[in-house]
């Protein structure tokens, strides 16, 4: 056990801190679920990429800097400590990219990853359908092979930021005779292709955070398939692992929230004093964020010693999503009657976060599904 950062890691931290202090927007950007906010976020992504900070763990030639996972944790810590903007292209950076690294051809990597790092390409995820949510294997959207292209028909839904994305990665049934997780293919679909209609869906916060995407005889080149035809389930499951595992939600995010909660408590100590449960909840927030951080460092250490992350990533998903809800509920209770006032500067970020936290146990595989996975794959209990 060695709990010191190397001189290189310390230097990297200092470099990131200094760069963010000089470059991070001084006033918060508008929500990326608005057109204007989206463009602001895209400009910020381009600036990050220009200085090699967009995707530090990727190889240099693909737009990264070949950094290790500890560097990534360090980068995230500095990023969140600096109150820098949310990452608008996280689907592309954190979900598609690891999949392409593993399953993509050299041409696909070269074609898509540098553009993704700069947010020239902005990605939507196309898995869910109206009748395929938790039961993703019941996907019916089709991609029927016709020579050097596929013809897509069907519908995806809940596709986050599809309104502003120009590409989608998704799962389609390429073998019409197949069922369940057989006969699916993983395709990269340009959202400006003819026959695609994107219809925004208003989310809980009143913004068009996700969208339905309709496909009518859409032609997609065979070159845009990731992995073998019919192997899409396998490819997609790898992405699902990345999503609920370490990458999507770095611990620094929750440490920042916990710190803000401690600060909130300290500012409102007097009002909070009459409710001992609030004090306890604030302490639990700090403990939870610390536990998540420690678990992440422990996981990274094990990865560096050659271990693989398996079904444990399901415990991660449950932990961060419930922690996030608990912390935001506590903030609501601390704010009391004021908590509903969306324009109150002290309330605004908490309220937005509270609404978004409601979705945490649902997206990226619901927490019930994660509990099934833990019981079946980690404990070996029989499938029903």
């Amino acid at each position, binding site marked *: *056990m*060695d*709990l*010191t*950062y*190397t001189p290189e*890691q310390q230097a990297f*931290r200092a470099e990131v801190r200094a760069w963010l202090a000089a470059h991070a927007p001084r006033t918060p950007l508008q929500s990326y679920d608005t057109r204007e906010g989206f463009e602001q976020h895209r400009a910020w992504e381009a600036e990050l990429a220009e200085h090699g900070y967009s995707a530090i763990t990727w190889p240099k030639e693909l737009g990264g800097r070949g950094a290790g996972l*500890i560097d990534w944790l*360090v980068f*995230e810590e*500095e990023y*969140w*400590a600096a109150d820098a903007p949310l990452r608008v292209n996280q689907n592309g950076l954190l979900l598609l990219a690891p999949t392409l690294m593993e399953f993509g051809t050299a041409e696909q990597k070269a074609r898509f990853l540098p553009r993704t790092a700069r947010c020239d390409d902005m990605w939507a995820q196309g898995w869910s359908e109206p009748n395929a949510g938790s039961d993703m294997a019941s996907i019916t959207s089709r991609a029927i092979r016709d020579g050097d292209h596929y013809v897509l028909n069907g519908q995806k839904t809940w596709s986050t930021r599809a309104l502003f994305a120009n590409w989608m990665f998704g799962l389609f049934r390429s073998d019409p005779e197949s069922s369940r997780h057989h006969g699916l293919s993983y395709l990269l679909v340009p959202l400006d292709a003819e026959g695609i209609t994107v219809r925004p869906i208003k989310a809980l916060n009143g913004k068009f955070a996700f969208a339905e995407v309709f496909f009518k005889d859409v032609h997609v080149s065979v070159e845009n398939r990731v992995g073998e035809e019919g192997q899409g389930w396998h490819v997609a499951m790898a992405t699902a692992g990345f999503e609920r595992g370490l990458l999507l939600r770095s*611990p*620094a995010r929750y*440490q*920042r929230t*916990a*710190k803000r909660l*401690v*600060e909130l*408590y*300290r500012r409102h*100590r007097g009002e909070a004093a009459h409710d001992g449960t609030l*004090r306890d909840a*604030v*302490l639990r927030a*700090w*403990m*939870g964020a*610390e*536990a*998540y*951080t*420690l*678990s992440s*460092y*422990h996981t990274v*250490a*094990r990865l*560096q*010693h050659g271990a693989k992350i398996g079904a*444990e990533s*399901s*415990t991660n998903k*449950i*932990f961060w999503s419930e922690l996030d809800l608990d912390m935001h509920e506590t903030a609501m209770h601390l704010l009391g009657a004021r908590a509903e006032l969306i324009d109150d500067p002290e309330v605004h970020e908490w309220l937005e976060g509270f609404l978004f936290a409601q979705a945490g146990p649902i997206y990226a595989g619901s927490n*019930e599904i994660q*509990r*099934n996975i*833990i*019981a*079946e794959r*980690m*404990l*070996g*209990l*029989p499938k*029903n």
Partner: protein
Amino acid sequence: MDFTFTEDQIAFRDAVSRFFMTEAAPEQLREVWETGAGRSAALRKKIAEQGLTALSVPEAEGGLGMGDIDWALMTQELGYYAIPDSLADTAYLAPGLLAGLPAGHALRAQWLPRVVDGSCRIAIGHPVNPWVADAHLADLLLMAHPVADGCELHAVPRAKVELTVLPSIDASRRLFEVRWHPDTETRVLDGVAGAPQWAATLDRAALNVGGQAIGLAQRMLDLATDYAAQRKQFGKPIGSFQAIKHHLADVVTEIEFARPVLYRAAAALAAGEPDASVRASHAKLACAAAAWTAARKAIQVHGAMGYTWEVDLQMFMKRAWVLDAAWGDRAFHRARLGAALLDAETLPSIGPGTTFA
């Protein structure tokens, strides 16, 4: 930055685990616990042969000179196999106190080699605990005596104390009310010198109990998982029912996020970090809570079998329940966290980037 254990540390832990599996099986422990003294000299001797009692004793006194980080692994095995209190008190807490004495102090030479070879038991009387565990068999009691300017350390032979036994719901426990009189002969450290030693002992004890709690949680999870795979109702293993799966998945998750907290606390103690007490309290709270969750879920999964004396689950549940309030109850440890995080004049260093700073 490498927040995990070496292969050697893991190998030592595994060896100890195999040893307990054969030498301290539940039926053997039940037999020992039914005797009046509740302890087996033969087992203690074998434990010493495994090197466990030498682990935390400095090399100069014949020990292995390992520290809190190694103990953080070992203590989980003590929990997993429901080993009674005296082992950790003698083999971890007492060496910590004795090794805190100046080099060449007579007590070190007198007792530490005996800790190593397993020929003595040392009981610890700390102000946070109203009673003293395993005082009846102790060759030596290290007692705290709070005074105006701190907390004295006294080394009291068994003959100089009077004991009243306090039966516990946990059949492995042997708790005693200890009556004794501090005098100049028993005094080893004055209040000023003793206070930091007793504070460090409390932190180590919290780590040790936390580790046992995680071991207990893991054991109860394993027992319940086995039971869920074997027991059939409605023509299928109960482990195929989702409600049962989710009970156990919750235990997995809670353990998964408590263990690294334990390890961080161990490292903080080993390095004497300024916020080691906060880390130790966090570890104790997180681990003990995981153990209580495990007990609650495991008994539910066992149905009526879990409510019997016969089924071993009870041994582990009861230890989990009683250890929760040993070495500071939840209120005590939360108060320590609250003082540091919420009440301190200035905001402590928390947030992204501070966990290993």
